[in-house]
């Protein structure tokens, strides 16, 4: 590995500065959210929960939070179902145009979001889906499907098919084999895909700006509206809660990954 000398010390120094740059703004928000001051100042002068209290007592913010959760949960269900089925079909199937379909499924990942947002918007205006949960769910599902497919195809590609064959030889039918053998083995991929799908929808903003209208305002859209023109100190409490949620989801996905690796190495 690398030997310690002046140059390596320099790289270490530089890298820790970069890590600080990446993490610092995220964590400065949390102490600020407990400030008792009406202005954002650091270090905070006193401790209070007033910004949290304001958030939890403002029905508009609570409604937006509900919208975000409902949209994200249904997006997760729909994207996980469609994405998992498609992954099994893509990895196992041998049909014409398979790689083209695969590329199509992954393409929303790199599509400029404003382009997708206005394409959805034009369609949804005609279908009266602007400002509805349904509009947000189907738009977010398009964004979330690639993440499910990436995660599920990854476990499927490393899947030992002799296990399924053994089950079938021992008398299980195809449905039993799928439910008792295949599904449990690919479930880590499905769960990570689902977590990605959830956070993709929950944190999505650009499509929400176009599709939320006035009757399905998501939390991100509400934040956007309130920080667009000035810095709203109340947002620091919501931002802290969102940071917490992201970390919880990140830790869950890490636990799933570790377990899969343990299983793999045990094999």
């Amino acid at each position, binding site marked *: 590995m690398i030997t310690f000398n002046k140059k390596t010390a320099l790289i270490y120094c530089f890298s820790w500065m970069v890590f600080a740059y990446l993490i610092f703004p995220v964590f400065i*928000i949390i102490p600020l959210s407990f400030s008792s001051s009406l202005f954002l100042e650091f270090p905070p002068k006193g401790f209070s929960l007033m910004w949290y209290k304001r958030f939890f007592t403002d029905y508009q913010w609570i409604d937006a939070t509900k919208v975000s959760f409902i949209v994200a949960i249904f997006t997760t269900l729909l994207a996980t179902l469609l994405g998992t089925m*498609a992954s099994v079909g893509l990895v196992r199937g041998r049909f014409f145009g398979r790689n083209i379909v695969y590329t*199509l499924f992954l393409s929303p990942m790199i599509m400029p979001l404003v382009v997708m947002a206005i394409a959805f918007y034009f369609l949804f205006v005609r279908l009266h889906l602007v400002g509805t949960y349904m509009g947000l769910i189907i738009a977010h599902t398009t964004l979330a499907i690639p993440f499910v497919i990436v995660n599920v195809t990854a476990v499927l590609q490393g899947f030992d098919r002799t296990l399924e064959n053994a089950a079938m030889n021992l008398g299980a039918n195809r449905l039993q084999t799928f439910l008792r053998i295949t599904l449990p083995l690919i479930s880590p991929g499905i769960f990570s895909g689902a977590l990605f799908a959830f956070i993709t929808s929950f944190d999505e903003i650009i499509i929400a700006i176009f599709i939320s209208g006035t009757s399905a305002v998501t939390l991100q859209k509400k934040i956007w509206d309130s920080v667009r023109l000035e*810095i709203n100190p109340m947002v620091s409490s919501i931002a802290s809660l969102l940071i917490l949620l992201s*970390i919880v989801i990140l830790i869950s996905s890490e636990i799933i990954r570790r377990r899969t690796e343990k299983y793999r190495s045990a094999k």
Partner: protein
Amino acid sequence: MNQLVRALGKDKILSGNLFLVLPALLFLLTIYVYPLAKMILMSLFDPDFTLKHYQEFISTSVYIKVFYNTIKISFFSTLICLVVGYPVSFLLASVSPKTRGLMIIFVIIPFWISLLVRNYAWMVLLGRNGIFNSMLLELGLISAPLKLMYNAFGMYVGMVHILLPYMIFPMFAVMSGIDWDLIRASRSLGANAFQTFIRVYLPLSIKGISAGCLIVFILAIGFFITPALLGGLKEIMISNVIENQVSNLLNWGFGSALAFILLTVAVLMIIGFKKYLFLEELK
């Protein structure tokens, strides 16, 4: 045995597999491909075939300027990410797994946190009455607040913060596959550290560099939130103009034309540099 399994799978479930792909395929064709195609048509018909939106784009210096700006900002964001990310990726690939586990947390946590929250955090830090300014004033280092956002500085700080992990991950992945025996061989054959880096390490890591740059550039040209929140008037990007055309000016045809131009740039980049992405083909 393996062949047998494959043959069995092929015969029994060929139609079944296509059936599994169909729901997602139909969903994406109606909800994603169709509206995109419709949007492209909208930029070309009004109601008869016309190129007027594209002519307007080419003949209006403001739009050309925004387009040029978008490319310029994306290029510099990519360059900054590369220069900042390369040593970090190198370090991540070289340290012990335990240290790496600790270090990588600092890259992954911000990566998972919403873009809007991170941009908001930078607004709080860089604003006129923001934390940096008030600290500097209190320490007596400056006498009047510095302008740290609503300009290019603020926007690059915010953009690089979002994009850097996308540069670090692919570079780190390639660098951790580099065989250190080659580096040792080069050193023992008399090359100095600099020569070894230029002639051995850099060429071996070039795949990670190109993948990272491509991903970062493509993401950057579509940026919308960061230029709106942290940039000034000079940092307006094409996405901001598209939003304005569609939401405020209700100029759907022209908005669509701009969106199609942006889409074309992204797609051309991907087609042109596809071999540098590690988009795995299905086995």
